[in-house]
């Protein structure tokens, strides 16, 4: 599976000159800044800097764009931890435990954990890509809408697992979120719930809704606090504690590895990618943990699960791009544009004929991991100072960032109005015990779920036996059922065995 001659050629291509490496550091910094600024997307950064790649050769262009991708995937976790604003949908699950940790004064450790998980995630992701690029691309070819629906359904089980103390309210919030996610035109050209407004034809913008529900609604509640963290001693930015957090991440190697595996395979699914992989990894970690109630209250494993999965998804989406020429999301779509600018077409032929370039991109990403680690450690102390800002300054600053960022996402006032509406809805939901994360996941997955379900219905003609002809669908379904009922089934099997032994 590994072409050693191409590997040697890739290494000589990378290390024959320093020039390709000159653009990696600025790339990672751009990614970090765009990822850490709410409302500025990684794909936006790549699109803005795409014209610059015209003056680079293909190899350099790829290194620059993947460096932005790598920096951004970690950067989006920073506001999720410090301000409860996931920079992108791939950092939703990072906020679940990251922000509670920050509120407890463990922001240094939380950021260290996020950095370690991201660094490890990118490394493992590209390692898997290096060894299995062809099997992964073949797997992607076998994925149809029914398989994608099963992956989304798996993600949707998170709604049930985030119920907290109020089971029914959690489910109501999640299902209403799903309905909100389907507002606007569906795949067959029917517009529902738009009240005649053409602004809603494209549906509710998910990220502004997320900013309103997660960040703005939380900030309203903190209006009377002096600081996010009350104790002055806990507000210190401490590089040693960041390093402790970095080490803490490796205390949960299984969580990290599971996140990486989920990230790379789910990340390879076009259109689903890191948005779902971080949630899946989180729900699986929570379900398997002996103390699931500690999640959502600042359990470090929650950050490990989310960040390792969303960082590995980069490699998964790169597999689809390189091997099939299919972009899995916004960022890889920009990379596809870079392919076109350099007259290169991704696909099986590209992998076969230009294996050295593919390997060089992968090897360069191994090196980017070390750059990310160093730059991340330099940037984190700078960014962690947010915790020292008095709330009377932090609240309006973050609200303004959310409003301007949402305008940047939609290009009109639908974004800011969505932030406002969902900030109020989110505040009411928190006040009356409805799960805000469940509602956000519902909104995120609603449109995706309806689209894939509809495609499956159209292909099968409504015949349920179609599912039986899809082995991958059945396999994902089995995994889903196993993750839901596996532990209970195991305990049921063990119980009679134990009683027999005792008897």
């Amino acid at each position: 599976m590994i072409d050693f001659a191409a590997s040697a050629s890739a290494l000589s291509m990378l290390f024959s000159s320093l020039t390709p490496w000159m653009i990696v550091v600025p790339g990672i910094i751009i990614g970090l800044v765009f990822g850490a600024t709410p409302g500025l997307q990684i794909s936006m950064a790549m699109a803005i800097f795409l014209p610059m790649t015209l003056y680079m050769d293909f190899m350099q262009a790829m290194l620059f764009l993947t460096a932005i991708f790598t920096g951004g995937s970690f950067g989006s976790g920073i506001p999720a931890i410090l301000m409860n604003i996931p920079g992108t949908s791939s950092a939703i699950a990072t906020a679940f435990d990251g922000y509670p940790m920050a509120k407890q004064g463990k922001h240094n450790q939380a950021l260290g954990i996020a950095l370690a998980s991201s660094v490890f995630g990118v490394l493992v992701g590209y390692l898997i890509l290096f060894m299995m690029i062809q099997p992964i691309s073949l797997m992607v070819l076998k994925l149809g809408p029914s398989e994608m629906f099963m992956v989304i359904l798996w993600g949707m089980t998170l709604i049930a697992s985030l119920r907290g103390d109020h089971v029914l309210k959690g489910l109501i919030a999640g299902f209403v979120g799903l309905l909100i996610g389907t507002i606007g035109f569906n795949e067959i050209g029917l517009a529902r719930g738009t009240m005649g407004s053409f602004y809603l034809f494209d549906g509710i913008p998910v990220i502004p809704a997320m900013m309103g529900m997660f960040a703005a609604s939380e900030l309203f509640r903190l209006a009377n606090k002096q600081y996010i963290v009350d104790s002055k001693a806990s507000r210190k930015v401490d590089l040693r504690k960041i390093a402790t957090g970095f080490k803490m991440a490796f205390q949960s190697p299984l969580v990290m590895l599971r996140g990486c595996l989920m990230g790379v395979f789910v990340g390879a699914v076009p259109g689903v990618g890191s948005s779902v992989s971080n949630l899946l990894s989180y729900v699986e970690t929570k379900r398997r943990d002996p103390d699931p109630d500690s999640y959502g209250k600042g359990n470090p494993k929650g950050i490990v699960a989310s960040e390792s999965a969303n960082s590995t998804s980069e490699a998964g989406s790169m597999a689809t791009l390189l091997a099939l020429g299919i972009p899995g999301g916004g960022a890889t779509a920009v990379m596809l544009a870079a392919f076109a600018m350099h007259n290169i077409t991704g696909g099986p032929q590209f992998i076969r004929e230009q294996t050295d370039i593919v390997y060089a991109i992968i090897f360069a990403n191994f090196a980017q991991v070390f750059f990310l680690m160093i730059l991340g450690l330099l940037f984190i102390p700078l960014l962690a100072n947010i915790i020292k800002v008095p709330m009377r300054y932090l609240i309006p600053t973050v609200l303004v960032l959310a409003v301007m960022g949402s305008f940047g996402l939609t290009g009109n006032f639908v974004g800011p109005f969505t932030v406002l509406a969902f900030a109020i809805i989110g505040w009411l939901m928190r006040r009356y015990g409805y799960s805000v994360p469940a509602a956000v996941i519902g909104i995120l997955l609603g449109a995706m779920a309806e689209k894939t379900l509809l495609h499956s219905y159209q292909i099968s003609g409504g015949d349920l036996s179609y599912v039986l002809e899809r082995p991958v669908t059945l396999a994902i379904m089995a995994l889903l059922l196993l993750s839901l009922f596996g532990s209970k089934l195991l305990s049921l099997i063990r119980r009679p065995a134990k009683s027999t032994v005792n008897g």
Partner: protein
Amino acid sequence: MNKLKKDYGHLCMLLGLAGFTIWYLNDAIRVAFTTPNLLLILPVSLAVLLLCIAELVISAYRGKLFEAVEDEPVKDILPIILLFAVYVLTLPWLGFDLGTILFVAIFLRMKNERNWFWVLGYSIGFGIAIALFFALMLPYPMPMTFLPID
């Protein structure tokens, strides 16, 4: 302490969510009463309505229908929500520069920042810097009062 003796918000919230679901289902049925259109919406809507009924019955039975879960200072939060709403809704007329400066300055005064140097310095400095940053980064024009639009 801050909990109201009888909070109708929970009941209103529940009725609001059920009401939205009924309205949305009705709108979807009105658009097209076909399987592809209702494939996801119909079962999910029915599930929401059943769950709302169950929550209503259980909350009433436990005597928790008129209680908020979170104990928070509503009297301090509502003015902030109102200020934020006014900021967002007036942005198309005030522009991102002036609107942001006013929002930050009023917020700081509301939260008892007595040093006028800080109130004006931060609101003007931050307002202009952030509006300029986004105006330069975004590919489309942002409404402004005194800063250049593009």
